[in-house]
């Protein structure tokens, strides 16, 4: 009796041991994978930290890699002085992205609703055209788009009233115009997201609204749109991020605008290296500044530029996945 008990205990032990070992090995492999990949993703950011906090003259010193000898915030100061100023451009940029995002949501939502819910003539054709306009890169149309904006006219109507064609390049409202007519940053994709969402929404809600006497528009604004919060959230986040980081539309159609993304690209272009170095040397009395200091200032600017995005990202990140899941792009 006693021996068999011992045997039984031993056998169970062996099983538990095997199970534990199995779990340990897999857990180890799993965590090393996750941590390794996570590290690879944030490695560029980690790599920045010692550079931007380093003393400008120590940059490029092979002895200094991870731990600076002397800490300084000079690169941040220089970046603020060069690009951000009193942070009004940043607020303007954020404001611009928010307005464009709102316009994009509005236009894409109504278009998506029509495509997903209303059986009008040529709906399938229009859906196909939306996909085509998503697939065709806007850059391939840049030249003639630019020229037609330079001499903007709709069927000769504008020149008849205004006397001549209008120059839409570099007007503050050009970008809003593009967004309103549905061709802003990746707007065709947003239309598609809304279409998928409205397609999956139960019909009963709207039917109830019709029976209660709501018209088409009332039904849309009172019933369909408030139920589309997940899709709206998804599009809002993506639209904000992409508009904030957009250099194509801001760069070509409103190059003198106060957009940070564009300003950063032009300030830190390769043609400007020597000017910026000269500025740093004279402003902060660091004659030993090399091109490494240019990089440090550039990266400090990138970090400041990223801050609003990162803050928003950390606030909304928990809801991103659920919203995206419910937004129906999956189905």
């Amino acid at each position, binding site marked *: 009796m006693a021996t068999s008990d011992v045997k039984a205990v031993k056998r169970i032990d062996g099983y538990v041991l095997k199970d534990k070992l199995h779990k340990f090995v897999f857990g180890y492999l799993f965590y090393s994978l996750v941590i390794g990949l996570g590290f*690879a993703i944030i490695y560029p950011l980690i790599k920045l930290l010692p550079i931007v906090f380093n003393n400008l003259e120590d940059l490029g010193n092979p002895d200094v890699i991870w731990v600076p000898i002397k800490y300084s915030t000079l690169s941040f100061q220089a970046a603020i002085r060069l690009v951000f100023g009193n942070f009004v451009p940043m607020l303007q940029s954020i404001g611009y992205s928010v307005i464009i995002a709102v316009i994009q949501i509005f236009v894409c939502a109504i278009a998506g609703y029509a495509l997903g819910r209303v059986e009008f003539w040529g709906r399938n054709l229009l859906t196909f055209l939306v996909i085509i306009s998503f*697939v065709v890169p806007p850059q391939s*149309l840049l030249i003639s788009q630019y020229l*037609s904006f330079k001499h903007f006219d709709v069927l000769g109507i504008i020149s008849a009233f205004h006397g001549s064609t209008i120059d839409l390049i570099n007007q503050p409202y050009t970008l809003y115009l593009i967004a309103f007519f549905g061709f802003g940053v990746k707007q065709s994709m947003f239309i598609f997201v809304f279409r998928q969402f409205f397609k999956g929404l139960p019909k009963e809600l709207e039917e109830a609204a019709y029976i209660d006497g709501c018209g088409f528009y009332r039904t849309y604004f009172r019933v369909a749109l408030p139920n589309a919060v997940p899709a709206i959230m998804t599009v809002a986040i993506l639209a904000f991020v992409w508009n904030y980081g957009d250099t194509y539309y801001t760069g070509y159609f409103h190059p003198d605008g106060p957009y940070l993304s564009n300003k950063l690209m032009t300030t830190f272009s390769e043609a400007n290296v020597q000017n910026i170095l000269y500025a740093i040397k004279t402003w902060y009395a660091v004659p030993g500044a090399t091109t490494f200091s240019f990089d440090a200032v550039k990266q400090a600017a990138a970090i400041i530029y990223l801050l609003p995005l990162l803050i928003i990202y950390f606030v909304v990140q928990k809801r991103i996945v659920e919203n995206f899941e419910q937004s129906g792009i999956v189905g």
Partner: protein
Amino acid sequence: MEGTAVKNKKLHISHQNMRKVHGLVFMLPWLIGFILFFIKPLVNTIKYSFHEVGVADNGGMTLKYVGLNNFTNLFRAEVSSQSQTFARVFTDENIDIFMNTPVIVIFSLFCAILVNVKFKGRGLARVIFFLPIVLGLKVVVDLIMITSGGDVADAAVSNQFDTSLLINFLLNYTFLPVNVTLFISDLASNIFMLISQTGVQTLIFLAGLQSINQSLYEVARIEGANSYEVFWKITLPLLSNISLFALIYTFVDMFLQSSISTEIYYFAFNKNNIGVGSALSVVYLFNVLIDLVLLLFITNKVVKLNHGDK
């Protein structure tokens, strides 16, 4: 009675028609935009590509028909801003895109599967794995990259991992051919570029994974399938639609970031050669569309093969 029925029917039809009209009204902004910002530029681009475009005395444009000259010039005479012929530029871009797209899609699927598993610290892992949505912006990538060369800019300073170790290891201890080794080390050294493109795709895949009915997995486990079989027989088939979407998204995104777009600008406004620039645009456009058709064709084949196995 009959009269009211007919009346109702009439009303019903008109209501449906009204609905269609309302739908069209909702589509109207996009339609106007489509004609103004898409069809018109498209037609004009094609028109310019067959013409020599100059500036008239009154500030307008003059068009002179030159047939296919712009296209032959583009490939015979002109060079890109990096002094490469355009045949070379296009082949490089296409090879790059066809190599990188599957890698990005598979990598993001892998990331999504990892963060879909329940484990301690999953929240943190998700935060980090979706960070490329923000970090992958072109501005950010450009700003973070190190531009200054110099002798000191070795592995310690640059943003790249040192791959010589990897190459040596693969060459000495595995029997892979040299080409494969080079491909792998290329991927490893480009890993930040690849990772920075994965944010949205990971999100798409994760949402797709979570929309799969959990009872399917339960059934599979009760039937005695191991996780390998579960992945190939349940997860992947149910993700096929999303994979296609992610694939197309990645593909389009890669083309958006290719260097050809800057070349177009360079031709049109730095070289003042709108005709050739338009020809380049047209070739670029056709390149994208042909590649996309090819991609759909290939995925179709693969999917059919999968069904054949079953």
